[in-house]
């Protein structure tokens, strides 16, 4: 371990202590560490015996990572991960600071990290991933990435640099094309939905930017996993080509998107574990995974459920409305336009809010509360009130709907703010202390 890395880790720990005392964010200690030793990731993660797995894509990274980690741990692996959803390199380093000895030894067999598309490349500059799971490409925060084509290129580059194995989404042509650039000897696995539910794909993707159907859809093999939901849509089976099904099992997180994430995680776990993979162990692990913070997390508000649903792009919001919109609950929508949310709120016009028309929306909030109310007006959805201040809005929403099921759709920084308030009020785990 180079001296510089040791110094960097010490500096990072000091910063971590300081931010903890101040109750601050999760990225700063990582930033400090990275400044002192830019190669800190290579020096710490580069030598893990079972490698480094990167999970990336526009939607579902946090959920999928959590599921994959749960399945691997259930098989006895010691897994390092960045469980906070802090998906920049400095977030990964921050997570590491709590688990590493000053000499730089990480007590783990394998690292599974979720990375934002742009930062995945920055990460790969420092430590080459042995494995990558690439989920999907959708329009997301175009003020940061500018073009969906660009996002696709970033993920392609990540695939190119992966050394041992990738798992790709067979239903997303931006992702499935990555197979054309893989290095020699890199193993390819596929996940996707069973052809019997292929008609549900458009609700998950933006078909308008996928011009060609890849005529050469890959032949799926023995260890590729397809999602097969049950008739009633509550449970699922991951069907492998060789008949070693995982499931039927029921996830704690609702909706088709979570089921696809589970399929992706299971397929990746199988590739990583190979002969050690046990379908029954995998199914049990998946059934025990709680939704990550704010991703359909259910909070007990004095006996009534409050669902906190993160929405950050048109595809994600559309899926969330499909999953939750039909089930009755008083609804609040909180839209911020800070950097981490994406500063342009145009994307709200690429979502159809018709599923909310019948019950209306009790309250819109956040910096762009009025723009959200305006958007709803154009879809004929009644809005009860507009309150830009998040705290005032939350108070009012809970007061006016006491004892009823409630649901809040929110952008990232609005979610973080509301989650913190809810944690204080209802004694929940704090950010960074997400229980496995």
């Amino acid at each position, binding site marked *: 371990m180079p001296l510089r890395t040791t110094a960097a880790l010490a500096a990072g720990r000091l910063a971590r202590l300081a931010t903890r005392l101040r109750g601050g964010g999760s990225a700063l200690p990582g930033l400090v560490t990275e400044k002192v030793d830019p190669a800190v990731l290579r020096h710490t993660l580069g030598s893990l015996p079972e490698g480094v797995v990167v999970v990336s894509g526009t939607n579902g990274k946090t959920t999928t990572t959590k599921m994959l980690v749960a399945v691997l741990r259930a098989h006895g692996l010691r897994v390092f991960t960045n469980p906070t959803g802090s998906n920049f390199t400095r977030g990964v380093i921050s997570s590491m600071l709590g688990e590493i000895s000053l000499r730089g030894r990480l007590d783990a067999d394998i690292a599974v990290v979720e990375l934002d598309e742009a930062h995945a490349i920055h990460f790969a500059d420092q430590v080459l991933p042995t494995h990558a799971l690439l989920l999907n490409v959708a329009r997301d925060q175009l003020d940061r990435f500018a073009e969906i084509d660009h996002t696709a290129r970033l993920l392609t580059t990540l695939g190119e640099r992966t050394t041992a194995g990738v798992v790709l989404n067979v239903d997303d042509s931006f992702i499935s094309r990555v197979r054309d650039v893989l290095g020699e000897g890199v193993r390819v696995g596929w996940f996707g939905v069973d052809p019997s539910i292929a008609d549900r794909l458009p609700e998950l993707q933006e078909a308008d930017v996928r011009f060609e159907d890849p005529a050469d859809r890959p032949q799926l093999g023995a260890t590729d996993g397809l999602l097969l939901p049950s008739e009633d849509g509550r449970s699922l089976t991951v069907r492998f080509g060789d008949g070693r099904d995982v499931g039927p099992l029921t996830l704690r997180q609702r909706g088709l998107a979570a089921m696809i994430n589970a399929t992706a995680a299971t397929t990746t776990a199988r590739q990583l574990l190979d002969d050690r993979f046990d379908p029954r162990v995998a199914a049990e692990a998946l059934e025990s995974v709680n939704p990550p913070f704010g991703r359909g997390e259910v909070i007990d508000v004095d006996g009534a459920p409050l669902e906190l649903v993160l929405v950050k792009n048109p595809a994600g919001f559309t899926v969330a409305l499909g999953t939750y919109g039909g089930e009755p609950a008083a609804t609040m929508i909180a839209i911020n336009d800070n950097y981490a949310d994406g500063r342009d709120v145009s994307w709200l016009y690429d979502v159809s809010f018709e599923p909310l028309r019948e019950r209306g929306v009790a309250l819109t909030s956040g910096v762009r509360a009025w723009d959200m109310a305006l958007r709803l007006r*154009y879809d004929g959805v009644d809005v009860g009130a507009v309150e830009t201040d998040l705290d005032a809005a939350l108070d009012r929403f809970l007061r006016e709907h006491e004892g009823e099921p409630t649901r809040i759709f929110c952008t990232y920084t609005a979610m973080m703010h509301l989650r913190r308030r809810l944690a204080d009020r209802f004694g929940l785990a704090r950010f960074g202390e997400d229980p496995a």
Partner: protein
Amino acid sequence: MSSDQQLPGDVAALAEVPADKGEVHLVHLYPREMSIYGDLGNTRCLAARLRWHGYSPVVHDHHPGSPWPDQVHLVLGGGGQDSGQARVQEDLARIADRLRELAADGVPMLMICGMYQLFGEAFVTVEGARLPGLGILDVTTRGNEKRMIGPVVLDTDFGPVVGYENHSGSTVLGEGQQPFGRVRQGHGNNGSDGTEGARTHNVVGSYLHGPVLPANPWLADGLLEIAARRATGTWAPADVDDTVAREAHERQVRRLLG
């Protein structure tokens, strides 16, 4: 109409006034290829407002290869990826003469971002290649390394306008070309001359997303007035409640200009 860009079918049914003032035909150019950043919202906004004013909106989605509709009272276009622009190039050349005639005849058009650039004289790439545009607006755009991104406030003939720009192309107006607006906050056409967009007859080109029409209802109604007069001979607007739009607009102005 393509299945993935459909407007809510019952927008019309949501209006509480009879639709007895006549049909107004809107054409949305390339809703698949050239409609990122919520540009569909402009079409949705115009269709809904027409209905609220008592007109019957007819929306034509124009895809590459589609026949050109018989009646056209207003034309909309949006922003796209480079790959999207490449996909519409041939079709745009096919309908170019029609668009030029309609523009010269005073048909209102709103062209955002990528379509604004294509309505200009030319686009000059970073490498120096010159790609000709339709020449309806006398503007020339150059590819730039640096993107111009952020919230915008403008003064325009239609009143103050708020939106969000995100473009790498830097656009310069030809001599005598009117801008769409003057920049009070943001970069505008090129970040240096204080102009934003371009306007010739009733053709407006602009970099503003937002999408621009919902939060600037007087701009939407300004375009609709011209379209309705062409379609029906008169403009008889109803009393539309724009409280929410005004709040959204004014809050952005206050936030950005202080």
